[in-house]
């Protein structure tokens, strides 16, 4: 795995992400400053980590989406390169047009940090192959604006194409308002683009990869990416 982690001013989970990628893949990822116009040679995974890029001023992710480095990310994604955006990274991907929809303020208008359950909707993608379809995983969320919204047509297409990969649910895998803590449309926690190579998700799998963190359910996502890239290489 040759991962590149984008660093925008105000991003704050880049170190968590780098540590997790190193832990799971054995390779140190490259940190790429937002002002760069190219990705490091041989990059096979771009990660946009969580945080508050540009202080979340204007709109979450709106300024970062227009950073110089995002041009390179668009080109990389267009060629089929894998892009993972977590939390603020998801917001940036939506703002940059690489994913449809938008993340609005949580339904209760408060920042929420807690463990949530996610149902893995399918396992035949690079981002979910470390899990079984229907498997329930526990990962933390930490955001104020993770309430996914899109127009009805987009939502229908996302569902029809099987592009919702992760959904908020109960510990048993039940999906419904009771378990949809931030009010996201269709309990959406993570989606991919049409080609299936760009994933955006609100929860932080990188914070559940060691026993010390209380849970290791997040490992599967990264282990799946490693397996996918090894197979491709």
């Amino acid at each position, binding site marked *: 795995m040759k991962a590149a982690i984008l660093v925008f*001013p*105000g991003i*704050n*989970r880049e*170190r*968590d992400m780098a*540590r*997790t990628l190193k832990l799971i893949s054995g390779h140190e990822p490259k940190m790429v400053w937002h002002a760069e116009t190219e990705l490091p040679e041989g990059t096979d995974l771009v990660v946009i980590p969580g*945080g*508050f890029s*540009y*202080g*979340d*001023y204007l709109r979450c992710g709106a300024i970062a989406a227009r950073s110089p480095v995002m041009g390179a990310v668009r080109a990389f994604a267009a060629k089929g390169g894998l892009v993972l955006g977590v939390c603020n990274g998801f917001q940036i991907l939506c703002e940059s047009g690489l994913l449809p929809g938008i993340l609005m303020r949580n339904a209760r208008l*408060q*920042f*929420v*940090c*807690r463990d949530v359950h996610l149902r893995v909707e399918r396992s035949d993608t690079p981002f979910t192959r470390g899990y079984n379809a229907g498997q329930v995983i526990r990962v*933390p969320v*930490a955001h*104020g604006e993770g309430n996914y919204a899109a127009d009805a047509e987009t939502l229908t297409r996302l569902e029809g194409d099987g592009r919702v990969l992760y959904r908020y649910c109960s510990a048993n895998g039940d999906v419904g308002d009771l378990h949809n803590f931030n009010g996201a449309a269709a309990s959406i926690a993570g989606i991919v683009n049409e080609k299936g190579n760009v994933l955006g998700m609100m929860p*932080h799998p*990188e*914070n559940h*990869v*060691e*026993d*010390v*963190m*209380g849970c290791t359910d997040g490992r599967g996502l990264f282990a799946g990416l490693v397996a996918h890239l090894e197979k491709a290489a």
Partner: protein
Amino acid sequence: MTRPMRNEPAITPELIASHGLKPDEYERILKLIGRTPTFTELGIFSAMWNEHCSYKSSRIHLRGLPTKAPWVIQGPGENAGVIDIGDGLAVVFKMESHNHPSYIEPYQGATTGVGGILRDVFTMGARPIACLNALSFGAPEHLKTRHLVSGVVAGVGGYGNSFGVPTVGGQVRFHTRYDGNNLVNAMAVGLAESDKIFYAAASGVNMPIVYLGSKTGRDGIHGATMASAEFDDASDEKRPTVQVGDPFAEKLLLEACLEIMGAGCVIAIQDMGAAGLTCSAVEMGAKGDLGVDLDLDSVPTRETGMSAYEMMLSESQERMLMVLKPEKEKQAEAIFKKWGLDFAVVGYTTPTKRFVVKHGGDVMADLPIKELGDEAPLYDRPHVASEPLPIIHARDVNAPMPVTDALVKLIATSELCSKRWVWEQYDHVIGGNTVQRPGGDAAVVRVQDGPKALALTVDVTPRYCEADPVEGGKQAVAEAWRNITAVGGKPLAITDNLNFGNPERPEIMGQLVGCLNGIAQACVALDFPIVSGNVSLYNETNGRGILPTPSIGGVGLLDDFQKSATLAFKAGGEAILLIGDTHGWLGQSVYLRDICGREEGAPPPVDLVAEKRNGDVVRGMIKSGTATAVHDISDGGLLVALAEMAMASGIGAVLDAAPEATLSHAWWFGEDQARYIVTVPVEHLLTVMSKLRAVGVPCVEIGKTGGDTLVIEGEAPVAIAKLKDGFESWLPNYMAGKA
């Protein structure tokens, strides 16, 4: 300079008074400089000599505090305290209040409180790894309380979450005595290499003094002076003196500062906190035995037409002052430009020991730099000790309801309910090192990749401090020490945040002196020195003081995070041990107040020898692996502690009736100190008991874990689910206007 400067008002008695300077303090200024001060100078004196910056009422009593231990690298007097945790690493930490601003503008007041304390920590070269806080609000039924809780919590979270530090623990309390004066005490903890700590003292003459960070605006002018005055009904009009926080700018400042420190550019560094440019520049010069010449024309400003007076007193946030190695100045500037931050040379060190401020070609201030700090007024204010309150005997307290009914009620009070509604608004997992999240006795945060970890806590019991300042002071330290012990940590050092009323009243001063006396006794007995702190006085509204609230922030060390203990029961069928003596002390207990409606009596006495002996034994049991669950007993007493252990695990307990010698309500709800609940597998029970008895530690088996109810012999059982429902729902219901 005896005439007023251009555009500056003349110095009149009214102007002097409006700067919070008493007539005799002004006389002191005249004597010191031998002439009438300029307006700018008057502002500088008011900033340096107010209570907040000069500690003029408390300094004389703070001298008696124990501040030394072999592991203390830096005690009080710097931006933060520093302790050695081995492996070439040091922990840098401090707690500070932002009370007055948080009452006037709760969101911004709280954000800048968090921002200020984070800056204190990274100014010393440490990367912040955890935040904690202690929040005290007025009575739930007070009209402003909801608004204040909502704003302060959002502000604490808003800053820490964006900055990127986990907020892992704290305290939230409600009491009518905080109605007009809530408290926001924020603590930050950072990690540094022990040989790379940065200090404020400048060195070398003619060294450039560099201004870094955000631009200077008109916000927060005289913030520190406001923090040194009482409130009245017109205080809401003080909103313009509240600073505005920008966590994004602070995050950039953090990264830029750590980068230039790592590149070896920095000689001295001081953050601009209270009294901004004035305090930071004077501190750097005075500590280095040097003078400072500032040229305000070079200060980056956010607004046009700012006067020298405004620039010197602005408390705009996210700013730093540094002395850089001249040969590294260009490299440092490039790093700051990369992070998009302002960088300006605003002055030089001089050999004169004078503090000279120039603006538009004029000398606006020329003062002796050492005397600005050293000659600040020092008061030995009159103080009277609180009258001792009578000891309340359990036999004189009627139990108005059965034990389990009282438990159900207590667990759903503002005092004892779950504070999840608060801490879920704080990112407590960022960093990937949070081993124990909020809700336990102490938070546990792994140090880098481990195996070491820090145990962190904030504690104080203000009602005890009010009833008996000396015992209350002892209890606050003992409780912090116990919290750290209960997770398996070795307590190392504390930071104290002393919140009191108006020190000009002898009874308030008596509370401060009494609490400090108790704190000092406990620090010595428990080998738990104070390495940093902050004093917040004048916490009064319309002549009524807050409960004396000396918040104690404690830091402890675990050799191996995998051996930390938690309070949740681990399995059914385990023996539950009560460690420490139980006499059934109901005076000042939550039971007496919230069940019997009596806020009375002497608080439980603190036996520091028993604290140390019992705690050391419990820590040993955790280390050896015999203890499976551990919880210290505090507010609410034994049964509340047991209920917390049950709710955390979903595992119940079957408990013996109270011993005959003790009344049932006193046994279950008394708040005797130096106690813990520990569970052990039954096969170890006899060995453990005999070991404890051998070292003189009182210990009784009080029941077994198991089931999904709490069953007390002779009482109606209570389901854990029912307890949990009340425990978890009080605060969210209250905030939604339903309670």
